[in-house]
């Protein structure tokens, strides 16, 4: 489409004055889309102060940055963000607005999509541009893939699943242009009162070399014993958990691996009865070697794992424990 350059906004996510790495992953995705449809990317930074982060992004990526500096934007406030984005959009709404599929994206994307009268595509993990633009996403715990298309000529709000792309790494020839708008704090009904840091974790899973992760499939506390025993075989072994198991009260939240828990990168990650929801896998993608033990051959986690054992973990884990002890000569085969 010569002459009709589509504007693409990528919303930066930040915390405590630092640009969150997921911003650069979404930028990689947006850049690929931009090349396919001849779009032009601007990174939008809503912050206070906005300039340092805007400068950092412009220098590292070479993309233009629009910064809006207002006091309430020092932390994420959904209502304030919507307000600021809407006022930016008054001088021409973007064709695409890319947001990370994080708690910020969950909160912001549907609201801003309604405000802009936009198509809203959530949880996107790929795209295809051969015959019109199609966005890809996984549903039903990854057992089915859906291709969806935005509607008509409206703006499109897309949330991109973290881990879909590597962080943007192309070295720019020159830093991007920076425009900073100073705005008065928008009046909002929601007031952010404070942020509470999680209590320092008694279990620092980041130090562990081997993590045995327990998922919903573990079922009850009794069955958790063999998971603990397996973890205890390794010098720096630890037990991790997916969220459902913590919600069931079987393990403390401090053991939780994933989006709202810890992010880990052990040498070996053995997931027992973990379905593989993206909120969990986001926290363990960097593991060197991943093993799944699951009764469901179609479980999403089998796609994350290098090796899969289809078995009832209550039967298999005791056998595995025996084999490990036998390998070390601590128990006869």
């Amino acid at each position, binding site marked *: 489409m010569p002459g009709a350059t589509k504007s693409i906004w990528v919303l930066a996510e930040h915390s405590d004055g630092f640009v969150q790495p997921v911003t650069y992953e979404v930028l990689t995705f947006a850049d690929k889309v931009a090349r396919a449809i001849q779009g032009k990317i601007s990174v939008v930074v809503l912050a206070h102060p906005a300039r340092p982060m805007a400068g950092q992004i412009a220098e590292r990526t070479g993309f233009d940055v629009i910064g809006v500096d207002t006091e309430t934007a020092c932390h994420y406030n959904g209502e304030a963000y919507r307000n600021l984005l809407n006022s930016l959009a008054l001088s021409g709404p973007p064709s695409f607005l890319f947001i990370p599929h994080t708690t910020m994206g969950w909160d912001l994307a549907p609201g801003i999509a309604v405000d802009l009268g936009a198509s809203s595509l959530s949880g996107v993990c790929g795209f295809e541009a051969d015959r019109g633009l199609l966005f890809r996403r996984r549903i039903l715990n990854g057992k089915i893939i859906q291709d969806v298309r935005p509607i008509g000529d409206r703006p499109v709000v897309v949330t991109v699943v973290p881990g879909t792309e590597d962080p943007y790494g192309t070295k720019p020839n020159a830093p991007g242009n920076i425009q900073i708008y100073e705005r008065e704090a928008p009046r909002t009904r929601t007031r952010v009162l404070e942020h509470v*840091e999680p209590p320092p974790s008694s279990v620092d899973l980041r130090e562990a070399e081997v993590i045995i992760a327990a998922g919903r499939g573990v079922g009850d506390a009794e069955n958790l014993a063999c998971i603990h025993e397996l973890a205890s075989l390794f010098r720096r072994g630890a037990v991790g958990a997916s969220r459902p198991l913590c919600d069931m009260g079987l393990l403390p939240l401090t053991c939780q691996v994933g989006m709202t828990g810890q992010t880990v990168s052990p040498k070996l990650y053995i997931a027992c009865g973990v379905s593989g929801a993206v909120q969990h896998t986001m926290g363990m993608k960097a593991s060197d070697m991943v093993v799944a033990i699951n009764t469901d051959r179609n479980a999403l986690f089998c796609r994350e794992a290098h090796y899969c054992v289809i078995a009832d973990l209550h039967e298999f884990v005791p056998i595995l424990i025996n084999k490990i002890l036998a390998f070390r000569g601590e128990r006869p085969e």
Partner: protein
Amino acid sequence: MLLLLQVCKALSLPPASGPVKKNRSSARFFYSIVVGWDPLHVPVRLGTGCREAPGIGKIGKTKPCHVDTEVYEREPSVRILVCVKQVPDMESTFRIDEHGKGFEESHTVFRMNSYDDYAVEESVRIKERLLDVDITALTVGTQRAQAVVRRALELGADQGVHLVTDRSQGMDALETSSRIAAFAKDQSFELLLFGVMSEDEQFSQTGPMVAALLDLPYATTVVSETISEDRQHVTVERELEGGRRQIVEMPLPAVLTVQSGINRPRYASLSNKLRARKQELQVVDANRMSPVGRCQELVRAYLPPPSETGMFLEGTLEEQAAALVRIIHENADVL
């Protein structure tokens, strides 16, 4: 601490100094002295004369209540809308249907989205706290979806609403949200509760979309909520990445999407089960509601290519375990 400050503000007291400021449990204790709540946040009201709360029945444990009838009757009644969704059992094996846009339903078991369990439970807990609360449970879906409205009644909702559609799959978030917003618009709900997402699609869109369509403030990923004494505001804790929390306050009416783990959902009581079976639902033909827009077009659905999976080990469990030990030994230096 937040609670303490609010109470002090309401009573025009200076905030207490010393250890009370830093310690949550002592803040609760202070709070309990001032307003007569016990330290664990269980509502035990001061006053004379005990009045049965309307419609509470035998939900969970009942505590002896001492409610000042006069004060109680002047308080406005709180109406809560809790929206629930029917989802397929995630353990199912799915096959693509003949239209290539969804899955075959013939052998699929459906149940209530587990995140909505937490939303229903939270509404019942609010009712136990504030007493004069009325809970309406609502779903949008085909005939089979009615089961989840009944499920919500079993768990303690007072009323059930079913907005009936003719399409069972591929419902668009904006379509669903518009239906809910159209229903809720003139109903003066103080609080609209949703699960943080549905298990099947995990898009986390419906709650915030309803809020935006109704122009209400909203908060997502909520792991605790406190409604102010005057029932004009709600203060919530939102769960962010890495277990970080954000505390947000907003006026009512408002929309909240609750995160799993906000509470421990109860089992349905026998009396509620019996009631739920017989109770009449408000059934609305969603197709007759004013036409609504869509926010996406579903082009196709398909099974993921097998090449994406890891390597499946073969043989007996003994053989697989032996193979796994060998693989771990060869690839990771941890044994």
